[in-house]
């Protein structure tokens, strides 16, 4: 973003080729450059996968097939899911981690800058493999982002490419996680004890641990799919003595912690934003850390609640139902703590705070529908219906995505040195929050009424709610163009931001100037 290193007078005899333009970004090992790259990648992918969602909603505006062939529809739903998870939410959180973790800890850079560069540049490769598969004969992968065999075994070449892309993204996540863990543990400034770390660092530390524990499981699972497809093994093929349901067990053993990987950093961001605008310290900091750890531990023993309908014994259903319900307790602790942080504060409502409040409210709706789905008999009725679609979009759009918006508005002045346009920011917020609810709230009713997910066409009684959802989707989708405009406008210029930016802001990142210089904390700050 901003490069002040050029400003220093020095003689440069004997320098070699100048990395310019593209080469500058390809070879950069600066945590701020890499953070920016991650965020740009996530933004591009957000618009790509968002356009797919709009195509899906356009097809579903009316019963009957209007725009899309059913097979292409399945390709869109699959790719929308894969890209939103692995190409938008995860890279965006990695971008925040790269920018903020060293700033918050008073470290000069990440522990392994070169590895950081590799971890980022693997992502566009995977992105190109995924998006490019639309052009292959037979089109992109259409078996759902969960990749269940035997359907996944039937597909063409793009299915193998998707497995390769998942491997590449997994490698990237592991390198990123190792970097974040070592940075947080080893690069803290003197006096920055673990207990003084901002909650964002804590949530990312736990997230990185979850990634390291579960990524080999995903890699193994997709590799077994690959060998089943191409080398005649029978891991998941019943005809050869395998078990297709075991894939679901292995997959969800990875993917349930993955769900928390997608939400814990969001908790971290919101826990930074709310105290700032309430002008009051975070309520129950220690409890927040313990609740995060508790959620992470529980995430390893609840995976089978994604598969209550595969037909498991009653005892197994009870086990997974009880342990899933318990997750509501630490999650509730977090929500109560956020509300208690606002209680008797001195609040102002700038855009980051608005997104954070919407996060607390709407994420809780997603939490309640999660509790409904935790009850096994109700889940069996609602599994694979639009109720589930509504549930995870409340968690991932008004949860993860809104926290990302909150974080961008919160730290953008620090990154660029310019204040964003508050009026445009508010427009973005209100259109997003209204649009988002119009899209996803009616989906609860669709699911209750019995509309299955992943269908390109539906029975007549589902028409009205689908039409409402489609209208909402276009409002929500197009209001993201405002977000793009705000970001571009802020990068280009605007009112100068002070180093503290927000009146109530606390933490090391607000002690460096805005924009944050290319290099910060060469000399470690001393934290008291």
């Amino acid at each position, binding site marked *: 973003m901003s490069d002040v290193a050029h400003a220093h007078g020095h003689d440069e005899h004997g320098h070699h080729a100048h990395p310019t333009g593209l080469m*500058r970004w390809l070879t950069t090992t600066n945590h701020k450059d890499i953070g920016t790259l991650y965020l740009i990648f996530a933004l591009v992918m957000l618009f790509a996968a968002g356009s797919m969602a709009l195509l899906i909603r356009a097809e579903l505006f009316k019963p009957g097939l209007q725009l899309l062939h059913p097979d292409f529809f399945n390709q869109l739903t699959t790719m929308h899911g894969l890209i939103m998870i692995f190409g938008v939410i995860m890279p965006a959180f990695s971008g925040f981690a790269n920018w903020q973790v060293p700033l918050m800890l008073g470290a000069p*850079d990440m522990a392994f800058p070169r590895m950081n560069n590799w971890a980022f540049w693997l992502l566009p490769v995977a992105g190109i493999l995924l998006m490019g598969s639309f052009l292959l004969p037979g089109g992109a992968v259409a078996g759902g982002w969960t990749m269940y065999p035997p359907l996944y075994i039937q597909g063409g070449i793009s299915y193998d490419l998707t497995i390769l892309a998942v491997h590449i993204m997994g490698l990237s996540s592991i390198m990123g996680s190792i970097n974040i863990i070592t940075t947080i543990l080893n690069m803290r400034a003197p006096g920055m004890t673990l207990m003084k770390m901002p909650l964002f660092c804590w949530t990312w530390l736990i997230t990185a641990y979850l990634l390291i524990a579960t990524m080999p*499981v995903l890699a193994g699972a997709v590799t077994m799919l690959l060998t089943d497809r191409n080398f005649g093994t029978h891991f998941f093929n019943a005809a050869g003595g395998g078990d297709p349901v*075991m894939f679901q067990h292995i997959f969800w053993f990875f993917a349930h912690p993955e769900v928390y990987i997608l939400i814990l950093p969001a908790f971290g961001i919101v826990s930074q934003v709310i105290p700032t605008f309430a002008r009051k310290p975070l309520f129950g900091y220690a409890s927040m850390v313990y609740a995060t750890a508790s959620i992470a531990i529980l995430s390893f023993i609840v995976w089978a609640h994604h598969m209550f309908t595969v037909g498991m014994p009653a005892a197994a259903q009870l086990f997974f139902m009880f342990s899933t319900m318990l997750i509501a307790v630490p999650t509730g602790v977090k929500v109560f703590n956020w509300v208690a942080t606002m209680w008797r504060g001195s609040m102002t409502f700038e855009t980051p705070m608005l997104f954070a409040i919407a996060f607390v409210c709407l994420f809780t709706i997603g939490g309640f529908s999660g509790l409904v789905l935790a009850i096994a008999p109700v889940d069996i009725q609602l599994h694979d219906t639009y109720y589930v679609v509504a549930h995870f979009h409340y968690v991932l759009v008004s949860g993860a995505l809104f926290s990302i918006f909150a974080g961008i508005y919160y730290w953008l002045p620090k990154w660029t040195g310019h204040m964003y346009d508050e009026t445009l920011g508010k427009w973005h917020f209100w259109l997003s929050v209204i649009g988002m609810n119009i899209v996803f709230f009616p989906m609860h009713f669709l699911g209750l009424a019995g509309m299955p997910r992943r269908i390109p066409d539906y029975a007549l009684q589902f028409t009205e709610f689908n039409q409402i959802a489609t209208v909402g989707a276009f409002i929500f989708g197009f209001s993201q163009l405002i977000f793009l405009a705000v970001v571009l406008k802020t990068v280009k210029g605007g009112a100068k931001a002070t180093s503290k930016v927000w009146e109530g802001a606390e933490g090391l990142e607000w002690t460096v100037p805005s924009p944050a210089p290319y290099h910060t904390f060469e000399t470690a700050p001393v934290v008291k």
Partner: protein
Amino acid sequence: MDEPVRETAGAYVFHSRPRCALSQGQERRVFWTLAAGAFGIALGFSALGYWLVLPFAGLEVGLLAWAFDALRAREGNYETLTIEGDAVVLEWRKEDGCGRRELNRRWVRIESDCSAPGRHCRISVCSHGCGTEVGQYLNDEARLQLAATLRSRLQV
């Protein structure tokens, strides 16, 4: 990279070492906790017959081991440059061992070599056609500042 410059009576001392907040024992425990988690899960799936998880856990633990090894190797490293009177003394410890070099201040030149303006710069203390790199644990900006400081110090 703490306390990069210290000035004692009459002498200019530059001392730097990589940032390191964990002790060796703590590092080892963090590594084994991570490795045990990944391996435990992989062994569980292998016992059920889904052994292909195991090689990936192995690769990941390998990467972790390399990373923690690199951290530990950095741990005891330091470099010190002292200018006292006419003597310039360099002392360092790196992954491949310790070293010491004494130079005569009048013959010393500071060379900086950047692959692009202000980026990927290395600075070395040269004398008699032979250079020793300094400021390895700083990054570019601080390194260039160090070069400027050293040049002004050596001119006197």
